[in-house]
C-alpha cells in the first residue's frame, strides 16, 4: 500500500507540473514573399553572365538573400538564358521575362532587355609590320548610342590566313601579321550568326 501511495503522489505531482503554459504566438518565422532585387534589367549582347540577387521577406519583416535557393527561368531562352542568380544573352537584341519561383508557391518576375550590338570599334593595325605581335583594341557600339562597351562574351574572333590571333580578351586582340599582304580581314561572329568584318587594308596604310 505504501508503494501505491508513492506512485499516486508522483503522478499527482507530475500532473500539477504538467498544467503549464501554452505558446500562443509562434516563435518561428515564415516566408511572406520573394522578389528579384533588380527590375527592368538590361544586358548587352556581348556581356558576360550578369549576376543577380533575390530577396526573401519573412512575416516579421526581416529579409535574407535567397538567390541560391530559388528556381530562375527565362521566358524565352532564345533571348537570354537564366541559371541560378545569373543571366546571359543568347541573342543580339530582344525582350523577355526573368522569373524566380519556389515550389510554385512564391514567385516574382521582371523584364529583361538584351541590347543590340550595332558595330564594333577597332584600333589600327599596321599590316606592314610582319611577324610582330600587335594589339588591336576593340569595343562595341550599342543601341541608344552606347559606345565603348566591352566584348566579354558570345563573340568568336577569327582572322584570314595572312595573320594569326595569339590572344583575346574583352577589350583587345593580339594579332601577328604573317605575310606581307595588302589586306587583313578580322571577323567577329556574334552568336554564330551575325558577322562583323573589318578590313584593315582600308583603315591603315
Amino acid at each position, binding site marked *: 500500500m505504501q*508503494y501505491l501511495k508513492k506512485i499516486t503522489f508522483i503522478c499527482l505531482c*507530475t500532473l500539477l507540473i504538467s498544467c503549464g503554459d*501554452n*505558446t500562443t504566438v509562434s516563435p518561428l518565422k515564415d516566408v511572406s514573399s520573394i522578389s528579384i532585387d533588380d527590375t527592368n534589367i538590361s544586358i548587352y549582347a556581348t556581356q558576360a553572365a550578369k549576376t543577380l540577387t533575390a530577396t526573401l521577406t519573412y512575416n516579421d519583416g526581416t529579409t535574407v*538573400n535567397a538567390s541560391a535557393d530559388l528556381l530562375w527561368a527565362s521566358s524565352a531562352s532564345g533571348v537570354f538564358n537564366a541559371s541560378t542568380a545569373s543571366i546571359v544573352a543568347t541573342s543580339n537584341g530582344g525582350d523577355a521575362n526573368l522569373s524566380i519561383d519556389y515550389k510554385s508557391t512564391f514567385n516574382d518576375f521582371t523584364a529583361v532587355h538584351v541590347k543590340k550590338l550595332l558595330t564594333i570599334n577597332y584600333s589600327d593595325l599596321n599590316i606592314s609590320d610582319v611577324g610582330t605581335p600587335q594589339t588591336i583594341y576593340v569595343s562595341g557600339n550599342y543601341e541608344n548610342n552606347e559606345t565603348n562597351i566591352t566584348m566579354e562574351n558570345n563573340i568568336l574572333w577569327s582572322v584570314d590566313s595572312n595573320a594569326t590571333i595569339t590572344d583575346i580578351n574583352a577589350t583587345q586582340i593580339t594579332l601577328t601579321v604573317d605575310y606581307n599582304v595588302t589586306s587583313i580581314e578580322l571577323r567577329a561572329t556574334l552568336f554564330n550568326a551575325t558577322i562583323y568584318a573589318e578590313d584593315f587594308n582600308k583603315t591603315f596604310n
Partner: protein
Amino acid sequence: MGVNYGVFSENFSDIDAKSSSDIVTLKIGYGDIKAYAVEFSFDYMQNNSKIFSSTDVSSDGDKIGFNINLLKSFDLNYLYPFIKIGFGAGSLTIERALQDTLSYGSFQGSVGTYIPLSESFDIELGYELRHTSYESINTVVANTSYSSLINIAYFGINYRY
C-alpha cells in the same frame, strides 16, 4: 486492451515554446501482466499552443500518433509496477506558407504500476517521458528541425482476456 487519459507538458529545447493539454491513448497489447508484454497504442494529443503555424489560426492542430512499447512488469502480489520503453510517430496539421502538416517521431520511456481490480480489469497509473523530433520547418533558405521533451502523467483502465 485499454484506454488512458493524461495530461502532458511539452518543452522545446531549441526555441522558447511550450505546450500543455490532454492526451488520450487507445492501446492493445499482448503479454503477461506479471512479466513481459508488447503494446501498440494510438495517441490523441489536444493542442492548445501555436508553435509552428504562422497564420491567424488560434493553435496548431491536434496530434495523432502511433506507438509501440515493450514493457516489463513485476509481481508484487497486489501491485504490478512496470517500466516501458518504445517509439512512435505521428503528425499534426499546421498552417504555414509551405507546409500544412508536420510529422514527428518519438522515443519514450514510462514507469508506473498496474493495480488489479479483478481477474480481467486493472487500473494503470504512470508517468512517461517522451522525446519528440519534428519534421524540418522549411523557410526556403533553411530547413530547421525542432525537438521537445514531453512529460505525461496518466491513468487508465485495462481489460485483459
